[in-house]
């Protein structure tokens, strides 16, 4: 029973680490537009790295027919866009201060972040 309990505690620790503490590598925005594919309940890539004070466009391509995937929200930037199915939608991101900007669907089941760091380009 002790082993089972220890396994349970380890499992809880793993859940906390995997979903909350682990910081996944962010995709750096290059000169070209980045395409974020919305499919199977996730944004790919879901973690995007942007330079400080650098305006950029991100193209979202929704391939997920679920209505949950339909709305893209970036609350801190007051962006709320309806993503049509199988059509790229370009979202213009203004120059941002350093920090993390979450983007998600209406229900926050699809989640991602734009991380802004570094010097101005």
């Amino acid at each position: 029973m002790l082993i089972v309990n220890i396994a349970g505690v380890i499992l809880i620790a793993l859940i906390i680490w995997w979903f909350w503490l682990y910081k996944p590598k962010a995709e750096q925005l290059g000169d070209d537009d980045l395409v974020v594919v919305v499919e199977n309940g996730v944004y790919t890539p879901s973690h995007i790295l942007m330079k400080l004070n650098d305006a950029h466009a991100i193209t979202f391509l929704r391939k997920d027919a679920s209505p949950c995937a339909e709305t893209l929200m970036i609350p801190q930037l007051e962006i709320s866009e309806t993503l049509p199915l199988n059509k790229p939608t370009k979202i213009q991101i203004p120059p941002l201060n350093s920090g993390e900007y979450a983007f998600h669907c209406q229900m926050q089941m699809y989640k991602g972040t734009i991380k802004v760091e570094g010097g101005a380009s």
Partner: protein
Amino acid sequence: MSESTVTDSHCHTEHPEKPHPVQPVTTDMTELIIDGAGCASCVGKIEGALNAVAGVKHAEMNFAQRTVSVSGTASHDDLIRAVEGAGYNAKVSSAESDADEMDEKEQADLAYYKKLMRETWIALALGAPLMVYALVTGEMSVNTTTERIVWLIIGILTLGVLLVSGRHFFVGAWKSFLNHSANMDTLIALGTGTAWLYSMVVVFFPEAVPAQARHVYFEATAIIIGLIDLGLALEIKARGRTSEAIKRLIGLQAKTARVIRDDQEMDLPIEHVLLDDLVRARPGEKIPVDGEVTEGHTAIDESMLTGEPMPVEKAKGDEVVAGTLNKTGSIVFRATRVGKDTALAQIINMVKRAQNSKPPIGRLADVISAYFVPVVMIIAVVSALAWLNFGPTPAIAFAIVSATTVLIIACPCALGLATPMSVMVGVGKAAEAGVLIRNGEALQTASKITAMILDKTGTITLGAPKVTDIFVAPGFSEQNVLQLAASVEAGSEHPLALAIMESAKEENVELLKTSTFNAITARGVEATVNDQTILFGNEKLMHERSIALVIGDEDFVEKAQGLASEAKTPMYFAIDGQLAGIIAVADPIKEDSISAIQRLQKNGIRVVMLTGDNRDTAKAVAEKAGITEFMAEVLPEDKAKKVQELQMAGEVVGMTGDGINDAPALALANVGFAIGTGTDVAIESADITLMRGSLHGLADAIAVSKATLRNIKQNLFGAFIYNVAGVPVAAGILYPVLGILMNPVIAGAAMAFSSLTVVSNANRLRLFKAQEH
């Protein structure tokens, strides 16, 4: 339409400076949307395949957009075939209208609904008989070899259900897991996966579990998948109804326009109508684009946009608005706004954006949603451990059932949907009543308004004053006073000046040349006409210039007070230092202002009137309108001060004005309401725009926002309670006291219908009647 899918195919073929063709011309540029291009190396392959097609001049791919621009004369079919031959899928991008987009969305939703229903039936076809068997016989255990074989077959069939009907949950859960996130798919995949795996362990290794725990849960696995698919399918149907208002607005757009070019009339798709095109609208036809009437006269029904039931007369020089209905006459108008610039397109855009925005009340739910799924997973583990440590025999079975039930019953969707669904319906409902709400925050704040400031002119009154009385002093004639007054005011945009000009026009009075003109703030004007010095303004101005207001036994101050007490604005008129008379102008109160103000007051809202007019007139208008609190002789900057003053007194202040002079006060108020002139929606400083002039729009806006907030609260309460009560019960909290442990199938049904309940409750708002007058 997504920005990137807009082609320029129409733009470069029809240059405004060139003579227009009779038929829409075909283009030599095509934009294709490519599907399946996953790497940069695909670019060369796709471009090569397209460049090899006969008639193609040049093909260039934008990998980021997954689009290719192809110039040349090749047919669309040839281009698509070439891309398909290279191993990808392609379709032609087109400049689609909102209606096309909505159609596509509906088709996509329908296809997804049908897919979910198919998956539901497959899952229930296996799950339902198993469920009945379990209920009737109570025999779901594995004790004999025959039972093992039978359950193995059923286990494999259940795996088929998981792969066919539940595949999307498992794929979504896995992708989310790799992404370090967790969602509803995670919970369902874990719950049903655990139930199936445990059952298969019982089938393959019955000895590994205690005899009493050799129970299989294949029926629960299949039924849960079926029920959740069913819930999702019904949710799609219910969600469709939440966007009815926007569908109605989109439905107002005409598909074609009758354009006159080179003296020929032709029907063109509205996307082909250019600025300055002449467009004919016949009786019974929708106005296809915004424009200015150049020929004919008619009555136009604008009720679909403004909520104003009476048709509006239109003649040369008047504006017509896309989406409205031409009722009686045939008119020709010049297109002044086309495509996405029309008022209707802007309204649709504004409503769509507002529908997608969230009021602050939803923020707590957002915070909870962000942590919800991992927390539920932890509760499931804790629950299983608790049963294993302290539960009765067979502890392993209890642990599996409780963990599965916790995972299945938890519903992050209900929480996530609670706010947006209500906002979607509420904002749409407001738009139907001619009320445009900028965003969710404005919607929420409007529901809390305790004080409403109303500008008098144009808000409570019609804003179109008329000359009602002219009293002249001995030695002067009405004609003479009106002529000089109109000459002084010529060119002024002030509503009172316009009233005098209008009156002079009606009397066929000839205007004289004004040689000097000086506006005196808050007093009036001083001018020279025909070498005569004219003073035209209020009593203060006359006193300052020592003009006698009592001539003989005639007291003009008394006359002015009498006029003011009738809600008229009296203005003194002096020629060369001598009073010549009084001109009174009245701006009638709008027919329904009184009842609208009563509606606001009945709702406990303190109504305050502000005006730059004199105190007596203001008092008379306020009394007539049923307002007890008013401020007269207010300068525009004082309006903002009054807003602040009320806010300091703890009021949540709404400010209503015309959006131009009142911009600072509108911006400072908790909610700024702009009264649109007709369908002018370009009022940036307002949180809420009323498309019709009636003050009932205010009461409607507040009523809709209150109803929406009530609905959101119901949804949030329901979703919170459901999860807060459901998860502990699923974990078995009632077992020690009542001996009850929830069946995972019940949890599945509850979960499936919890979000459906939220959407259905939001849909109840569709029945809300905003206008109660």
